[in-house]
């Protein structure tokens, strides 16, 4: 019997069994599920007789939605994870929207009047004055 994860209830084994860190019971040197070589031995003894929920269907990797009853704790973990993911996604979408000209509040807020008022002080008058003194060569007219 494989133990479950997280806060879920674990059915206490009645004998020493070797588990992978992912919780998969195996005697192999590498876990066929996660490939890890880390092992631990669970030697707890059964101290209490009680009815515990069991896992009847393989769930795949931890943290991925499995075919479990919705009342199971996996869904609760998943809901927290999805909520966190959706928050990150929503923030990224907001950043994306802010980067699009016209949708950014700072850009969209500038009206034509504001644009003109902003540009007016930067406009200046250029005054060019030129004093000249012309010296003409007088040529005599004649045939």
């Amino acid at each position, binding site marked *: 019997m494989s133990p479950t994860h997280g806060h879920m209830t674990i059915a206490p084994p009645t004998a020493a069994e070797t588990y992978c860190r992912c919780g998969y019971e195996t005697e192999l040197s590498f876990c066929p599920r996660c490939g890890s070589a880390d092992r631990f031995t669970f030697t707890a003894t059964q101290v209490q007789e009680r009815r515990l929920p069991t896992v009847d269907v393989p769930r795949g990797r931890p943290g991925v939605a499995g075919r479990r009853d919705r009342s199971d704790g996996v869904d609760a973990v998943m809901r927290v994870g999805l909520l966190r993911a959706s928050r990150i996604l929503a923030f990224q979408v907001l950043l994306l929207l802010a980067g699009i000209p016209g949708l950014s509040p700072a850009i969209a807020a500038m009206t034509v009047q504001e644009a003109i008022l902003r540009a007016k002080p930067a406009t200046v008058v250029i005054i060019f004055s030129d004093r000249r*003194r012309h010296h*003409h060569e007088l040529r005599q007219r004649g045939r």
Partner: protein
Amino acid sequence: MSVSPTPFVGTGSGWFVDGRGYVVTSAHVVFPHRCRSSYGRRRSKRRVDPALRAQGLTRGQRPDVEERIRGLVTDRAMATMTVTRSSSLMVLLSNGTKLPAEVKKLSPTLALDAKGAPLPDAGRDLVLLRVKDGVYPALGISTRDGQIGDAVHILGFPALILTHELLDRSISLEASVTNGAISGFRKDAIGQDVIQTDAPATYGNSGGPAIGNDAALVGVMTFVSLSPSTGTAVQGFNFLVPGKDVLKFLEGTDVRIGEPLQSRGRTRSGHSSRETIGARQRSSPRSTRSYRTCRT
């Protein structure tokens, strides 16, 4: 014989491209001497009529011929003349402060010779000026893709407003704004990109910024269109030096512009008859009537 004509005083518009004291304006605002002098023009008037009569024409019949004759006569008059000049260049800020300026970089005006061909040193009609160090309000340059129909606001100091007899003199400190849109992408006589806009502009707007709705520069006002028959400005067909060309002009200078945006130039061929919006030129500072344009 020596003659001292009344001082030539011209005004145009400019804008701070760098808050440390760098100003951009049109080259023909700062170097109007590429135009023929008003003295030369006055002197040439007396010789234009006989030349026209010799061709069987009277004034106003053929403005193009008249202008060509005037150019030839003026060039001939200038050839026998030695000119001693003393020029000054000032920048009048919106708070009333008047600062002397020096030229840091120049791309000459697109000028035409008497036969109407572009001069060999014709350029982008931009100049970079430097005033004393300070903290000035500066405009960013948009290199966003301009599209036909995009809003354009031209800021500047038109001579008509500066010298309006019914307005208070303090009006000269606040830029006038005209609104329009990008109406086309053209090329000038030497193949440079220009943006056509229907935002009104007139003499004195030269060098002024044309901004978009995001307060970033779209282009610099450079020339308007003239009626071929009367020679007066036709509104709704004005032209800007694109912002991306201003950025190119400022390469290699100390100017630090704000964040440059992406650019995509788009031009189409063809151009109409045009005239640079000249700095307002007047024979005396008090005169409100006589101003001329700088032919380019």
